[in-house]
């Protein structure tokens, strides 16, 4: 499964990178989103995959099971998801404003006008 996920992460990065290199600003925003997914999955996978359940301390126990998923990458990724959403929302509104002002979403055309 790790191999499969590693391949999926590779595809996500490839797709995100390709979109990042487009002249169309909308595609750049899509690319940012894909790169966000890719990075989250990368960190999550780096903490090892586990099918033994979430890191939650059961009733009556004093500690979570040693086999449960690693809580640390989860905490990191959770923060990243939320921040990623903030970035995406801001980028999207910025994009909309820019397109309204410039009349195009072509990055090169914007540069020449600027």
């Amino acid at each position, binding site marked *: 499964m*790790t191999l*499969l996920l*590693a*391949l999926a*992460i590779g*595809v*996500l*990065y*490839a*797709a995100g*990178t*390709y*979109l*990042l*290199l*487009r*002249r169309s600003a*909308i*595609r750049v925003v*899509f690319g940012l989103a*894909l790169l966000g*997914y890719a990075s989250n999955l990368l960190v*999550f996978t*780096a*903490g090892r*995959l586990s*099918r033994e359940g*979430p*890191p*939650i*301390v059961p009733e009556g126990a004093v*500690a*979570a099971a*040693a086999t449960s*998923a*690693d*809580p*640390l990458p989860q*905490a990191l*990724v*959770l*923060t990243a*998801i*939320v*921040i*990623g*959403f*903030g*970035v995406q*929302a*801001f980028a*999207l*509104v*910025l994009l909309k*404003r820019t*397109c*309204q002002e410039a009349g195009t*979403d*072509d*990055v090169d055309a914007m540069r020449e006008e600027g």
Partner: protein
Amino acid sequence: MIAAVLTTIAVAALAPLLERRLGRRAAPLLALVPAGLFVSLARHVPEVSAGGVRTDSLAWIAELGVSLSFRLDGLSLLMALVVTGVGAVVLLYAGSYMKGHPRRGNLLGYLLAFLAAMLGLVLSDNLLGLFVFWEATSLLSYVLIGFEREKAEVRASALQALLVTGGGGLALLAGFVLLGQAGGSLEIGALAANAEAVKASPLYLPALLLVLLGAFTKSAQVPFHFWLPDAMAAPAPVSTFLHSATMVKAGVFLLARLHPTLGGTPEWTGIVTTVGAATMLTGALLAVGQRDLKRLLAYSTVSALGSLVMLVGVGTPAALAAAMVLLLAHALYKGALFLVAGIVDHETGTRDVASLGGLFRALPVTAVAAAAAAFSMAGLPPLLGFVSKELLYDAALRASPAPLLLVPVAVGSNMLLVAVALSVGWGPFTGRAGETPKAPHEAPAAMWAGPLLLGLGSLAAGLFSGAISPFVSAAAAAALGHPYGVKLEVWHGFNLVLAKSLVTLVVGVALFAARGRIRSLAGRLAPIAAYGPGRLYRAGLAGLVRFAKGTASVLSSGSLRQDLRIVLGATVVLAAPLLLTRAVLGAPDALRSVRPLEAVLAFLVVAGAVATVLAGSRLAAVVALGVTGFGVALLFLVFGAPDLAMTQFAVETLSVLLFVAVLRRLPRLQSRSAPRARAVDALLAGAVGAVMTGLVLAVHAEPLRSRLAPFFRESSLALAKGRNVVNVILVDFRGLDTLGEITVLGVAALGVFSLVRLRLSSRAAAAKGDRP
């Protein structure tokens, strides 16, 4: 000694201030500093002549073996006397020469600072200390040569001198480091005591070559000689000080200083002697055809420096004694002649020897000084130049490797130099008066005093050469590494050496008489001379600038996407080999099995990503992106991260809503890039993806040793009273991080809000404007 150097530096800093306050009286006052140093150094002459050595040391960076350790022996005292003596004369002269120049005070300050650096250089007994002073002289020479900074060719000459000597300086530093490793110390005295070990070390040859490179560039040896004539763009006092008496001798001094440590091997003798002899001949040949007074002097200085290097290369006691006498004689006569050239230029407005003549009437005192210096340079008895030339011939005759080669080179060069000496010190003052831009009259005393003093010095030192013998012997002994006694005298009796001196003089005078024809011949040969190493330097510099501009325009095109491509491409090229080998060699992962649900989810993620790229409409792309997002969320859920899954679901829902809300107002998707560009990008993106896959696999190839995971699993309930470990980390263990995260989100929300509001208000404004 340390105090002397530091005081001079302090005075140098104050010089511009002093000049503003005292005007023309500042220069004579400042000249008292080197004059005082000269007197206090001269008091050590009897002691040093008797073989005494004074040392002075101040630890600087003890851990690296760097110290300001100074050593006053015959060699350093000789150099220090030259530096301070000529320095005093030059400062006095400069005050008058630069009269009315708005930055006269700065020049005096630079000259004093240079003097301090030069003094530190010759007195240093530590290689790294010496190197620091060495580099200081290079930097100050850049400022001094480029003093008339308004002219472009002056700046180019200064830069050329800096690049050539500075480049040599880098080689020198490397050589010093190797030398320190080979000899186990950076103290020159300790290295000399350990000379056998240094010469036996495998580092000997590289160290020698690097040190020689530094010395040869500084002392303008072939093929680096071209910077010295070009440096004549400097004002006359600077040329006198740097390019005849002191800085260019630093290379020779260094060779003499390190001769006990490095000298005497076949490599040393072969390289140093050959380069010196080649320089002696090249300089003399190039000098004789020049028309410009200062360039005549510059090329003859190159020749004299070649003689000095050759003598140090031969390395016999007689040769080193000859080198010491020539060093002193050259400083006296060449210093005087440079100052004379400055006076002539100052008074007539030209330095072209062809149009100068009959100046004796207008400049009688200068003419006397010029004649004394020129006769010393030509080697007329009883001046010091004669003594030094006799010693040079004698040493060449008795040189062990190749007297048959060295003697003709030495005699031939000196014949040419006789003609040069007469062209500078005799020709302009005799014969018919030429047409000059200014009507000449005698320079002020502050200007002719220096050349007269130095000229008389040549005479006195020649006449009383017996008296300076012990001092010269002490200097030669310091360069030899063992005691040595030489007896200087003007009259040696009739012998082979005297015969050579006579032939030199006769041929030299004949060459001087034919100077017009030689100059026209040189004019015709000039196109060939243009193919010198100077051309190589200029081509190299231009190539370097082109290369820098080329790389800059490729690496930083100004297009963000292009820069991104370069960064990504470089990352792939650098990371791929390492990551892929590690990933392939790595152990197979622990979670090898694949469950159907997981495979479906992974497929969803991949399909969504591909569809986002290929989507033809905005809505389709948003839907595809959403598929990927939900797929990722479900993968989190499957692998024990329900918190992540829930957050992702929430965020995904919000994102899709946001996209749909905004999408309507965005332009339609268009393909703007050419197919070829898209193919290149696809290839690059694919490579990036492959590297990231490799990264994941490489990470899994390493065993995971987390001490944090067990800590959090065990401490969550005990310390933070929470059962959901992930939540506890976020709100408790890393609570402050989460606070920061909330702040970021708040700022982003403010940004979103203000961008939306801005639109409304501008619309409102537009609506108002529409109203009649």
